[in-house]
């Protein structure tokens, strides 16, 4: 049985002129025990989908189930078995770490002791600060506490809305390690993120853009969908070089990626010579051109253009 099913979910919000379609009838499924990534830029509709699945928001149309329970009819059963960590830190800032945990344990009809095993590893990291007020914790600590609070009632499905946004690189890696340990315990995890590089840490990902799905696949599967050759180029005048490449009618796309530009051609022949020629013609020196493996971000850029 699929843990989460989403069928043709549509959600619109009233806007100044007419309505804004936040979700345009998307469908996908999540298997039991998966770490499923919902990846897309800000405003793609990730939070709306999370709020629908956590029974906080009603969709305009479509069906969705969590653990086999309908999000509209059986919302009460869902609330007993899910953990939700909203994108915005939303624990009580004026209660201490321990008090927050105790409060959320109790309102989910359980106690810290009962499920301590599940959160032990994470909680031990923040335990030295257990009497500190939640509002005075650092960003990474807050995330850990929020995760503890979302886990304390031993949910079978965990919804994490942009848990790593605004968190430093080290804490981000730690956070993903924690997620993988939770996965071992059999918890299904749906996590959203705007960072493409985190996609490879998920079992499967859904790329979402402007309320529509671009692709649902394993990270490897998504990369294998990228059929064309990807070139990495650099020269002394990076910006001028990019403008020159973009002007060429044979180039499909060219965008900056870190210290290099990624280039895709419409046809496959003579691409390297072609790029060399552009560099020479425009007097750019130190041109370095090579073929590279695409990553998720390249796939996302390619899918967005289709």
């Amino acid at each position, binding site marked *: 049985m699929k843990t989460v099913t989403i069928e043709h979910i549509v959600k619109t919000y009233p806007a100044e002129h007419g309505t804004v379609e936040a979700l345009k009838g998307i469908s996908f499924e999540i298997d039991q025990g998966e770490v499923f990534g919902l990846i897309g830029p800000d405003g793609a509709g990730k939070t709306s989908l999370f709020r629908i699945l*956590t*029974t*906080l*928001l*009603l969709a305009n149309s479509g069906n969705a189930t969590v653990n086999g329970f309908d999000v509209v009819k059986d*919302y*009460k059963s869902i*609330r*007993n078995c*899910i953990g*939700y960590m*909203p994108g*915005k*830190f*939303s*624990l*009580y*800032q*004026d*209660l201490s770490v321990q*008090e927050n945990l*105790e*409060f*959320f344990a*109790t*309102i*989910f*009809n359980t106690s810290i002791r009962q499920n301590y095993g599940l959160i032990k590893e994470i909680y031990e990291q923040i335990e030295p600060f257990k009497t500190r007020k939640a509002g005075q914790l650092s960003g990474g600590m807050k995330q850990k506490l929020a995760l503890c*609070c979302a886990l304390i009632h031993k949910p079978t499905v965990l919804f994490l809305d942009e848990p790593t946004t605004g968190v430093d690189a080290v804490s981000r890696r730690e956070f993903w390690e924690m997620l993988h340990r939770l996965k071992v315990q059999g918890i299904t995890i749906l996590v959203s993120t705007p960072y493409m590089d985190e996609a490879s840490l998920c079992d499967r990902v859904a790329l979402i853009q402007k309320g529509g799905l671009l692709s649902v696949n394993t990270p490897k599967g998504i990369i294998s969908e990228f059929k064309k050759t990807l070139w990495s180029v650099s020269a002394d005048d990076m910006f001028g070089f990019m403008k020159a490449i973009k002007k060429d009618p044979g180039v499909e796309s060219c965008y900056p990626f870190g210290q290099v530009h990624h280039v895709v051609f419409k046809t496959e022949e003579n691409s390297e010579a072609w790029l060399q020629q552009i560099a020479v013609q425009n007097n750019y020196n130190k041109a370095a051109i090579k073929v590279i493996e695409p990553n998720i971000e390249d796939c996302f850029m390619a899918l967005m253009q289709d």
Partner: protein
Amino acid sequence: MRMLKILLWKELLQIYRDPAIIRILFIMPMIQLLILPLAADYEIKNINLGVVDHDHSEYSRQLVNKIVSSGYFRLKDYSATFPQGLKAIESGRTDLILEIPTHFERDIVKDNRSSLFVAVDAVNGVKAGLGGAYLQGIIQNYNQEVRTQWIQAQRFDEQPTIEIASADWYNPHMNYRVFMVPGILVMLVTMIGSSFAANNIVREKEMGTIEQINVSPIKKMQFILGKLIPFWLLALLVLTIGLLIARLVYGIVPLGHYSTIYVFATIYLLAILGLGLLLSTYAQTQQQSMLVSFFVTMIFNLLSGLYTPIESMPAWAQLITRFNPVSYFIEVMRMVMLKGSGLADIRYQILALIGFAVFFNGWAILNYRKRSG
């Protein structure tokens, strides 16, 4: 039950940790109760009087003396002509002019009648009305005195006169503090009940913590009770502080039982807290809920009979006061404090407030949604 207990524990802990709430809770009633009753006095004193005396007779001097010695008036201007006297009013030096015509004394003695002219500056309506009335009373009294001097020996009054002797029941000395303190206390309790609770829930909305509550299996009823009870306790605490101040500072000891006040306050707070909850279900930000509750409590207070008697309002406004819970509490407070009314005497008000409580809370519960559409 365990759920409700943890909600209450959390709420009380948060209130206790918020230094602003504690300060407001104790300082607000003290300042209001120590300053307002002394300042908000209905009695008009120190009315500035201007006199234009064209007669300069024994009688006119007697009349002016009598007016000034009443204690309500201060003789500020003594002009020769009416236009001069009017100047004094225009410049704000005097509030009213008494013009005594020429031959005032002669006319009274000879014709048995004379007339006086009173001009009042009505910019401040209350001052004008009361000042004019006081002056009229004094002149009437003076008239009586003059007459009794002439017809002393007569056994039967030729002119039947009715003399009025008044006794002020329940507040024999017409002490305004006795009258104002219970009213101000009601105002305080109302403010705490309506705006504190509303703000608290909206704060959870702003902070996003309500989302966490909403995805939990907590029942609507538990959540709302968890919010009602702490503020109900707080408001009763403020009421207690207020009653203590009334007793220790103003020496106001209710004639009725304190228990009657608390029984009524309990029901009253359920209604007012319900109103606060209702506001919070509509407001999205603390600013909105603040402004709306400020507006509502202001209307409630002004239409409550605290400052102006309900009986003197126009009929439509009196109808509005019927739907104002504050007016019931002020009425009950005064009844219990000054008249010693018991529960049986205020049963009508109790019933009305139970109605309010059911109405506001019912609406709030219906309108509180754990999810949005």
